[in-house]
């Protein structure tokens, strides 16, 4: 499939504009990062439904809760570090505990925060969000899955956390592919080891790792997790049982997110042996994305090595 040149944030904005055309309840919230999130087109199309709250994430999430209590479907975005760490109690109590319908978008996941460095680098947002009862936690991996999952989030009655990589990433799926909350996709079928990855960067690395492994005669399945919560336990277990060896791959702490979710599932079923690729109890730091991928052990060669060591 052709490489996508459109940025993910542009796809996010387009999707909201499309959804907003038929659903007047969709409203947008930004906290002085509208230029970064790229949601200007929504504001231009529906100025009365776009609210820039300023540098005040706690209030943004609280206002989103109130809009939801008034029947609206708010999409509120900020960097993932702030969406999770700074406004966690607001999202937990005013949105999730209150059974409201807020879609919180955390951009610049993990190493993609690059030059903003450790203060801005969410390696723990998924761990925090996974602990919130009843919500969905999603990380699209390309333009089509972003469109599909944002649409699914809008339709779902309940709060959702979406991790959004802002830059352009290669296409994995054809336009029109269907996506569901709670469903992963099998991108490549192997027989020796299954790799499950979350998010555009890590799915890309997992596919490269599968190529590296193939050269060494190891046949790897690659699963695009897409929905961390609920996790597609059926597909994970099927591949785990078929391959007997399993590797989780995430741009996040190896504990608390995908690695933990899969570890829990495999420990409870004994379906496969597990290795986890992810950040090992460290804070983020500045650097290029490529440097940081290497620094935190998240590249294809790290994944292939982890698979072979099983």
């Amino acid at each position, binding site marked *: 499939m052709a490489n996508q040149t459109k940025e993910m944030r542009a796809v996010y904005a387009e999707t909201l504009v499309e959804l907003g055309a038929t659903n007047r309840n969709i409203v947008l919230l930004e906290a002085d990062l509208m230029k970064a999130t790229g949601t200007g087109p929504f504001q231009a199309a529906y100025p009365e439904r776009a609210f820039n709250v300023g540098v005040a994430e706690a*209030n943004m999430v609280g*206002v989103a809760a*109130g*809009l939801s209590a008034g029947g609206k479907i708010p999409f509120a975005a900020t960097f993932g570090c702030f969406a999770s760490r700074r406004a966690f109690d607001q999202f937990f109590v005013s949105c999730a505990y209150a059974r409201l319908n807020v879609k919180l978008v955390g951009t610049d996941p993990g190493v993609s925060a690059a030059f903003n460095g450790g203060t801005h680098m969410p390696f723990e947002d998924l761990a925090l969000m996974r602990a919130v009862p009843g919500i969905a936690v999603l990380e699209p991996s390309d333009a089509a899955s972003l469109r599909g999952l944002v649409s699914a989030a809008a339709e779902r009655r309940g709060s959702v956390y979406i991790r959004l990589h802002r830059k352009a990433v290669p296409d994995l799926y054809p336009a029109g592919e269907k996506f569901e909350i709670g469903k992963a996709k099998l991108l490549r079928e192997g027989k020796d080891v299954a790799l499950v990855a979350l998010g555009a960067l890590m799915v890309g690395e997992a596919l490269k790792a599968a190529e590296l492994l193939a050269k060494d005669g190891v046949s790897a399945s690659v699963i695009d997790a897409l929905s961390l919560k609920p996790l597609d336990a059926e597909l994970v277990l099927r591949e785990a049982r078929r391959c007997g060896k399993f590797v989780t791959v995430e741009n996040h702490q190896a504990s608390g997110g995908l690695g933990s979710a899969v570890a829990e599932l495999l420990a409870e079923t004994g379906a496969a042996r597990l290795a986890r690729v992810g950040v090992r109890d460290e804070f983020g730091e500045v650097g290029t994305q490529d440097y940081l991928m290497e620094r935190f052990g998240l590249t294809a060669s790290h994944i292939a090595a982890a698979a072979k060591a099983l």
Partner: protein
Amino acid sequence: MTKEELASLEARAKEIRAKTIDAIGFLGVGHIGGALSIVELLAVLYYRHLKHDPSNPAWEGRDRLVLSKGHAGPALYATLALRGFFPAEWLHTLNKGGTNLPSHCDRNKTPGIDMTTGSLGQGLSAACGLALANRLDGRDSFTFAVIGDGESNEGQNWEAALFAAQQRLGRLVAFTDYNKMQIDGKTDEILGLGALEEKWAAFGWETARVDGHDMAAIDAAVEAAKARAAAAAAAGTGGKPTMIVLDTVKGKGAKFCEGSVGSHNMAFDYETAKKAIAELG
């Protein structure tokens, strides 16, 4: 308000106060102080201002109330029961396992509760969102919010204060229950609020400061806020949100706890409650 109307309202406030003391006393422990300090406000809102329909709590055209100081829930539950949102017998289930009346307000459990609150500082933001939703849907409904003085320590209130003024939420009317006490002591000795009314004015709000147990004064301040909102709407502007600072007394009306810091969350037996209710006259 006529003399007769005020007398009737005073009778209502007495009922709310009695039911609040009774419910918490029946349980034996609870946030009696901050519940009793807002009784007059609740009487004015629920018997004179708040558009509501107890037979249809989800009525879209209703005015909304966000009790951001969610621990004062028992006073609001007493009010809602008296207004017919649910049977008064429910009041004796306060905080019991499986109850519809938890210590802190829950929009999913209690008919008539518009917003889940309890983690302090969050309700005013939610009230802003409700006011925006009303405006988007072209409704002229009001959104009322009640915050505590201790709660006003939370920075999120001041984020919301800036936001409400920026968005010209003229149909947002908030109250501060300024009983001058918080859990660990007097507000001035913990984290003083200084010139509170002036702070809200400086944040771009219309303000008033009244005796929070003088229902004619509360009523007049709410009427003035409504008149300003109507004038702003006629002029095609949103207007300013209103903050009414209520000078109140923690534990007001119950001798065993009135004016005491310890009344924030206090244990007392049912006999004490019955005596206090008898003393209301």
